[in-house]
Structure formats: C-alpha cells, structure tokens
C-alpha cells in the first residue's frame, strides 16, 4: 500500500471563529469559497456526522470530477474531518479543517485555520509523480480558499444584525 501523503496549509483570517465555523459547516456553500469546487450538486445543509454532500470539482484544465464527501468528525469550533471519493488515482482522501480563536492587538477577534488533506496516491510511480507535481498547486489552492473564506465573511458583514426572515430555499 502506498504511503499516505499529507498536505497542510495554515492561514490567519481576520474574521471571528464563530462565522468561520458557520460557513465551513454549510455543506451547500463550498462552491463559494473552496478553490476548484465548481458546484455543490447535493448537500444536507449544516454538516452532520455520517451524512454526505457531493461536488463537481475542477481537476486539470477543462476536466472535472464528481466527488462525494462523508462527514466523519465534528468537534464544534475546533475540528472537522470528512472523507471523500471520486479523486482517482488518489485514494483514501481525507479533508481536515482545524481552527483556533485568536485575539489581535486591537482587541478584534480572528481565526487561525489549518487546512489539510491526506490521501494515498495510486498508479505506483506514475501516481507518486503526479502527486509531487500537484502538491504546490494544492497548497496554493488551500491558501486561495482560505482567503476566499475570509473575503466571504467580511463581505457578508454583521450577520447577527441581518434580517433573513424573508429568505427561502427554493
């Protein structure tokens, strides 16, 4: 069996942990901030252990793949672990978000986010070569995603003061 590869990136987001947790827990919203997710094709709303959601993901150039994720672990405001299928030749795909509350010098709240994936490259040496080639892109994509997440939360403003009573889900 091939060795497990782990790719991890960390970023400090200038937005509160409560909002980061809310948005990362929304299984219908990954296309809005996760780089490479073109569309969420099925979801179950706020993440629940044991339930699934599906995506259409960009792979190389115009090529796409369909993936399905299962929520495996939720430690509120700290950690979320999902396992995914549909990324062949990578197997045993596991996605891990970890969070830590920060307080900046000016007293405002921020969040340290760690974004990791673990997987086993398939196809022997070919797969390992592909894996080495893709890792820099993955790291960049994780950083882009975390910046997107920060921008999304900043742009949505003070959600507590927002009246969403008229909103419906079609």
């Amino acid at each position: 069996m091939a060795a497990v590869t782990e790719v991890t990136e960390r970023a400090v987001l200038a937005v509160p942990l409560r909002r980061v947790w809310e948005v990362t827990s929304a299984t219908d919203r990954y296309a809005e901030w996760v780089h490479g997710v073109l569309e969420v094709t099925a979801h179950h709303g706020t993440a629940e252990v044991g339930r699934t959601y599906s995506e259409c993901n960009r792979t190389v150039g115009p090529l796409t793949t369909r993936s399905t994720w299962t929520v495996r672990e939720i430690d509120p405001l700290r950690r979320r672990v999902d396992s995914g299928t549909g990324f062949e030749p990578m197997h045993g795909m596991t996605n891990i978000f970890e969070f830590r509350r920060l307080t900046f010098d000016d007293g405002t709240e921020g969040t340290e986010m760690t974004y990791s994936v673990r997987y086993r490259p398939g196809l022997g040496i070919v797969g390992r070569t592909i894996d080495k080639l893709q890792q820099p892109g993955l790291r960049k994509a994780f950083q882009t995603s975390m910046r997107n997440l920060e921008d999304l939360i900043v742009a949505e403003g003070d959600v507590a003061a927002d009246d969403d009573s008229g909103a419906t889900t079609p």
Partner: protein
Amino acid sequence: MPSSASTASSPASPASARNTDVVVIGAGLAGLTAARRLVAAGHSVTVLEARDRVGGRTLNHDLGDGQVVEAGGQFVGPTQNHVLALADELGIDTFPAYDEGAAVYVHGGRGTRYTGDIPPDLLALPDIGVTMARIARLTRQVPLHAPWEARHARRLDALTLDSWIRRTTLGTGGLDLMNAFLGSAYGATAADASLLFSLHYIAGMGSEGVPGTLERGIGTKDGAQERRFVGGSQRLSTTMAEQLDGRVVLGSPVRAVEQDGRGVTVRTDSGAWTCRRVVVAVPPALAARIHWSPLLPPEQDALFSRLTFGRLMKCEAVYDEPFWRGDGLSGQGVFRAGSSVCSMFDNSPPSGKPGVLMGFLGGRQWRAWAHRPAHERRGAVLRAFAQVVGRGALRPADYFEQDWTTEGWTRGGPTAIAAPGVLTDLGAWRDRPFGRVHWAGAEHADYWNGYMDGAVRSGRDTARAVIEQES
C-alpha cells in the same frame, strides 16, 4: 406600498362618482407624460396611482446630504430624444455616467482590464462578431410598427434568441455575453425571449432615421448608458406630478373599468371616477388583472397576460469615496456566466461623493440569489464587485437592494419580454384601443421599448390619439 392596496372598501356608486374628461391609470413616466399633454390640450384629467409615490419603475434612493442614487431606471443616451426633451422642458439636467479608465471583464473568477464596449475574450470574439453582424442584418428586416410582418416572421418568432445564437455560433462566448447584457436589459436570458421580439427590441434602439443597433444598446459612450439625470430619474415624475397640481391621486389602485357607449367608470377602493376616455399606463400584465366590463378582447387579454416582466434586482454599495477611480478603473464590470451579478457600474452622484457601485442581479443570477439569505447575497455581490475594483469593495459604508419583483405594482423588471409565438399571434393587439380605453407605457413603444424614452414616447403618442378622438 399604498395602504389601500391591501384592503378594498365598497366601491362608490356611479351617482357619487367624480367626473373628469380623462382618467390616467398609473403615475409613471408614460402616464404623467400623457396627463401633462392632455391638460395642455385643455382636458380635465385625473391620474390614479396605486402606490404612495409617483415614478413607476424610476425610484430615487436617499443617500443623505441631499444626494440620491437611482434604484430603478436611470440611464439615457443618444437617440432617446423624447425623455431628453422632457427633461429639458422640466429643467432637469443630465450628467455623464462615469466612464473614465478601464472596465473589467470577469471570466472564470479572473478579471481583465479593457477599454471600449467589447470584452477582451479572444475565444469568444469570433462568436460575438458573428452574432452582432447577424443581428444587425436581421434587425433591418423587421418593420418597427409591425414586426409580425417581417420576412419569415413566424420562423423568427418560433425560435428563442438562445436557440438561434447556439445554431449560429461555435462556442458559448457570444451567448454568455448576450446573457450578461440581457440580465439587466430583460431581467431574463436569451432562452426566455423570442428571436423576433429581441430583433424588434434591438431595432428600436434608435430613432426615426437612425436605425437601432445592439452597439448603442450595450454602450456607455455614445450608447444607452451614456448619461444620468441630476437629482435622479424619479425627479422627472415628481416634477411632472407637481405641475399637474393636485390631479394625481396616490394610494388608489384601480380595481375595475366599466365602459359603454356613453363613457367609462373607473373604480378604486376609495371611490369612482366617470370620464370620456381612459389611458391605462401600467405594465401590461397588471392591466390584464383589472376587472374589465365588458371583458378585454381575448387576444388582448392573452397578450397582456403573457407580457410578464423579467426578474431584476439592483444591488448598490456606498463607499466614502469612489476609490477605484484612483486606480484607473471606471467601476464598470461585465461578468461572464457563473457570477452573482451580470454587469456593474459606478453609480456615484455627480459630485463623485460618496462613491457608489451598482450591480444588476437579473435573470439567471436573480434565480440563483434572490431566495438566499440577505447576508449571503450581499456577500456574493460585494465579492463580485471586488473582482472588478479590488478588496476595498468588501467593506462598504452602506449597502442596499431594490428587488423589483417585490413591488406589487410592478412585479418584476425592467421590462416585459415576449416568448416565442406571442408577437406573431398577438402582437397586433398591443396598442389597439379597447373602446374608450387607450394604452401607454414603456412596453407600448416601438423605439426604446422598455426604456424611459419608450415610456415618454408612448405617453405622448397616446395623448395625441386621445386628443384626436376628442376633437
């Protein structure tokens, strides 16, 4: 909303009805223009307006400090001579929409600066060129006064604009960019409108002796987005209403219109008016909902019922300064498929302070975002703005939206569009008077159909027809 819109009291009997020469239903640009002309011709006129304001699809939003920004129709440009002449008569100046610096084309989440009106999409350019050339050729074959008499009219009206573009282009670039335009122009996509209707709409983007062109419709400089009205476009209507000196009755939705050989009775929740003629200047789909006695001719009822509005929301973010101007950006953006808005503009008042960015969320984008929680939609719009002007757009001092589908006396926007088959089967009934009832409105214009200029033209033409009938 007018308080009387929700509850109806007993209608007045004809014996207690007030009498006037002409009742105008609707105090938007068309209705007020017609009323003004009729009064000038010596007729007594009452304008009945359902809302508690005038202006119809024009609406000013107060920015404070005496500044306003438009939440409804706002742009004017060359060949829109009637609304410009009206503004001149009313003493309302125009100013150029901000157009200095580069626009940004957003495709696949990536922004590219450009100048001119055609986005720099190399792969899409051939399709755009082919589509525009073919549209230019076909629009010349469409008689503006009777598009159903165009050569091959039935064939052109059997297709949607979408299916025609797909047939005549290789990729999706031309279609995507047409939809970026139609998102704001129709509040819909090319799949919602008949090809013949779209050709007629584009052929009308001109004036007598100046053929309509798509370039004029999409353009800023020398195009339909070239100028705006000082004090906001609603000022046209508020000024006309002031001049009509008490003849405009607000909060009076018309429920029924009854006519016979002697005259017409118009019933509202608060009373009735008897008159010799009626000008109906409300959107066609709302006109069809009035109780008519006798009933509207079935063809006219079917036509008006099918001329429903697109779906459009204007989303505007207010900043202390138009910071993008210092970066050499015009604040204009065009978004190819996949974004939350279809196009955006610098909508700052003429003083340039505060800075305002305005995005159209229409058609497909409206469907995707209108029902999402307000904060999620705001976030999506501001992130789209940030793709054009940078991350400074993410933190506005204020943000507001005007969803025209939630206006009970408009029910969508910006204009009514005809699906395949409607124009050839029913189009001839659009302006045909129904006894003593005449029709006006932006949807009743051949030139600049759906625009402020079309509304003013239609109001003027309908008033002229009524005056002729009464003389």
